[in-house]
């Protein structure tokens, strides 16, 4: 009895179970150090991109770097065609996925009967799980011939990439849009219905505007996803590093994105060459773009909101 009572001794003891304390101090120390690991990692990523990519910014005249010719064999490193390629594919992807995603979110939240929603949501979640290489493969082997049959000179176009990217970002857009719509206070909607609006009018006039910040996030994360996607885009966009001619056919020409350029050419360059560090320089550009998108989105909803939205996209 007395022995068992000892730890409960009457006087307030200073640390008597010293060994346990040491173990805990070590564990808690490790946890605290791990806590800042993400800051360290992001700093390391930027550092190593800079280390390998900086020579490109230093050795290539800026005018050439922002030139219109990407022709590494002749030491022409104009990034413009790649930027334009990424831009076109991204714009196309968002133009397709945003209306599709938003409408589907409205359908799921407002119109679909519960049993159907229970079936549809897992199907959409499955889409988020399909590896991009598999979608790229299908785009390459099945979708591209289909598009060529529609009359394009080739099936490997910016549009093909946009289409695949659009479907890849749909799960994100739908889930964020659903959350945004869901967050609109019920009173708004009821108020609109009470004064005689149809359900559709209530959605269009009241719910959508109220959900706007959330929808903006959906767009921005969709853009981030589209700009950063590599394999699917590389396989289906034709990889032609030209600036496409303007006009209605702009989406139906082959393009080459920044990501695809890195993936396709890194394997063939000599380490330390100018071409090599230019590919890293493209990586820096991508890194900064993703940073900027996060900063913008974070300004809209704060880090907390962004973290929650990211949850859907991760």
């Amino acid at each position, binding site marked *: 009895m007395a022995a068992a009572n000892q730890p409960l001794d009457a006087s307030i003891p200073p640390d008597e179970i010293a060994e346990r304390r040491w173990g805990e101090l070590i564990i808690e120390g490790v946890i605290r150090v791990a806590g800042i690991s993400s800051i360290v990692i992001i700093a390391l990523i930027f550092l190593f991109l800079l280390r390998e990519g900086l020579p490109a910014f230093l050795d290539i005249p800026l005018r050439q770097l922002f030139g219109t010719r990407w022709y590494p064999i002749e030491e022409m490193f104009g990034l413009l065609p790649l930027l334009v390629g990424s831009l076109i594919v991204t714009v196309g992807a968002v133009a397709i996925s945003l209306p599709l995603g938003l409408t*589907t979110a409205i*359908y799921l939240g407002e119109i679909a009967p519960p049993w159907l929603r229970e079936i549809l949501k897992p199907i959409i979640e499955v889409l988020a799980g399909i590896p991009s290489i598999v979608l*790229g493969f299908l785009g390459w082997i*099945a979708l591209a011939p289909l598009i060529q049959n529609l009359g394009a000179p080739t099936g490997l176009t910016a549009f093909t990439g946009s289409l695949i990217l659009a479907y890849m970002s749909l799960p994100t857009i739908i889930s964020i849009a659903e959350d945004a719509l869901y967050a609109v206070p019920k009173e708004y909607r009821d108020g609109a219905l009470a004064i005689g609006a149809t359900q559709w009018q209530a959605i269009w006039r009241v719910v959508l505007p109220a959900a706007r910040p959330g929808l903006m996030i959906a767009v921005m994360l969709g853009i981030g996803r589209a700009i950063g996607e*590599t394999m699917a885009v590389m396989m289906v966009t034709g990889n032609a590093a030209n600036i496409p001619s303007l006009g209605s056919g702009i989406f139906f020409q082959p393009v080459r994105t920044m990501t695809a350029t890195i*993936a396709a050419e890194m394997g063939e360059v000599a380490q330390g060459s100018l071409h090599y560090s230019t590919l890293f320089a493209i990586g820096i550009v991508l890194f900064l773009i993703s940073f900027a998108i996060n900063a913008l989105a974070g300004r809209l909803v704060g880090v907390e909101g962004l973290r929650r939205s990211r949850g859907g996209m991760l």
Partner: protein
Amino acid sequence: MSRQQTHKLAVVVLTAVAAIVVIPIILVILYVVWQGLPMLSWAFLTEPPRNGMTEGGIMPALLGTIILTFGTAIVSFPLSIATAIYLAEYAGDNRLTRWIRMAIVNLAGIPSIVYGLFGLGMFVLFLGFGTSIIAGSLTLGIMTMPVVISTAEEAILAVPQQFRTVSLSLGASRWQTIRYQVLPHALPGIITGIILGLGRAAGETAPILFTVAAFYLPELPRSIFDQTMALPYHLYVIATQVPGMPLQIQYGVALVLLLIVLSFTLVATLVRTQMRRRREW
């Protein structure tokens, strides 16, 4: 057009659009299954490729993906879970915490190909690991950290606060409280996050392009400093780099990859629902 007509039209349009979204997903999966299923056999999974990959199986790539998934787990979990514990249980409401959260959100947004560049610059070249399993695992592990951290943190925060208070009031230290009253109940959520992260890593191509993946390597890796084939890259290679590749093999690889990745999602969902059912509070 009357208001009621507008409403009816809207319902029709919305339904049609939802169909446009959902039907292709089902078609894609059915198509891959239909095309790839004939290929699926024990021999396909366990034999190495032969004759310039145009015959034989996918064993080295399959095994490589399994090894890389394990490697990713070893790199990612300790760090991610410790970070999640830190954020949920130790971090105060201060500038450092906000910085950490910013960093995680930004890590989540970095394109996977940029992780590949980072892995090349730091692990392959600077640390001298070469194109190797360890370099690939480190790269993939770091890439999966944000998803594991945020699911794990959510799971930890979902444990009712009163369990902590009661535990502390009974003389438990902070760590004992976490160890005995928080982590056991957060485990299902943490495991879900881990599996989701691994599923993502198993299907990724861009981060392994320059850090580990081998074009064609019939032998199996002997150490973590060897290269290995991996399924996603293998699919890319046989689809675009090898002329005269039989379509069936391509679909077979796509199907195996799809099955692996989707089974991760499935298991994660099962773990979550199963554990929720068993929960007492």
